[in-house]
């Protein structure tokens, strides 16, 4: 199979102005992935599926990822003039990176027996613009898994034929797999609570002396 760089350059040649990005992976398997802008994801997906050299005809997996807002520390050397003399300072600036949600697609080729190529779509933020483009029109197998990502992460897939909750019930509020999900306070007795559960156990089942 072609390398990701080759796929990227061919994609960009086929679809002008696509704006791809390669996301490296520092983990042991080192599987890099392609970040596609949601606005044109469907064109890119069609190309990946229909291109004779790639023929990625099988979408095995769609997953959601939640990236919280994070603070990045940036170190810089700054020269300042103090009392008429130039001095070099180490300066540490904190930059806030807004969080986003991600839909990750694992693509394989059944025909050419290669893969995976990993495709990512990112939402603008985690709150009101948590939207990406549904790739169900390209790979039918993405339908239920996109519904699952919608159900548990709250990623809205535009163009999905039937975007409803799939695991939780329809009346359920909130998205339970998000990292800032607060579970309902329904702790029940456990014989040996430990760590952070101990605090809950104290709150719900006070020791006789405090009660």
């Amino acid at each position, binding site marked *: 199979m072609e390398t990701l760089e080759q796929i990227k350059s061919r994609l960009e040649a086929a679809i002008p102005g696509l704006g791809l990005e390669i996301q490296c992976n520092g983990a042991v398997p080192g599987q890099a992935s392609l970040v596609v802008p949601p606005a044109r994801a469907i064109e890119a997906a069609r190309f990946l599926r229909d291109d004779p050299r790639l023929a990625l005809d099988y979408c095995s997996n769609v997953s959601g990822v939640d990236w919280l807002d994070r603070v990045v520390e940036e170190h810089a050397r700054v020269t300042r003039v103090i009392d008429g003399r130039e001095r070099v300072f180490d300066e540490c600036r904190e930059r806030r990176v807004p969080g986003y949600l991600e839909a990750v697609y694992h693509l394989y080729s059944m025909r050419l027996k290669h893969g995976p190529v990993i495709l990512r779509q990112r939402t603008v933020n985690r709150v009101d613009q948590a939207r990406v483009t549904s790739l169900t029109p390209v790979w039918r197998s993405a339908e239920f898994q996109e519904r699952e990502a919608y159900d548990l992460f709250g990623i809205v897939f535009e163009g999905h034929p039937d975007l409803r909750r799939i695991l939780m019930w329809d009346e*359920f509020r909130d998205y339970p797999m998000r990292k800032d999900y607060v579970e309902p306070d*329904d702790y029940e007795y456990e014989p040996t609570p430990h760590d952070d559960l101990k605090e809950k156990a104290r709150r719900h*089942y006070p020791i*006789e002396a405090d009660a």
Partner: protein
Amino acid sequence: MDEGLRSELSRQGIFATTIQDLYNWGCRNSIWPLNFGLACCAIEMIAASMARFDIARFGAEVFRPSPRQADLMIVAGTVTKKMAPQVVRLYNQMPEPKYVIAMGACAISGGPFKRGYNVLKGIDRYVPVDVHIPGCPPCPEALLHGLIALQKEIASQKLTGPSRARAFQEEAPGEFPVPEYGPYDLVPAKNTDLWRPKPIIRDE
């Protein structure tokens, strides 16, 4: 009936019994379970019904696909909050006398998923459970043991009098309210008429 008289009569070739014993004998030896499973415990239930463990030895091999024909509901597996109303509905559709076995840690208390957001913390919040079988999952022998425990319970049940079995108490409910889906949990989260655990006070 006096035991001595009964054995004396049986020696003469006369079999004497009571309606209660006859009824319970028939009832306990043909417990037809409802054919449904919820998780991995169902695999053990299926294994128990096959040749190696052979639940047919205890008269419970006729797994019925309809609750109208079933006597026993084996709650075999994790009851999610989404599934719980359907389980209660199935129980309500079963004819009396009916019995429930909670099989495995999940059906008893939520098991390893007790702290999760989507799993019911025990089916005994909504339906009365006769036998609890601990295990994760319980092996087929444990299910057979649970079934024998249920048979013993049925054998000793009374048809009349104040301590008669639940099925013969006119005022005892045979159906239980089906919970509704709420924004975070089922509403109500438990049937307080049914589920009254003793207050627990930690003695740390």
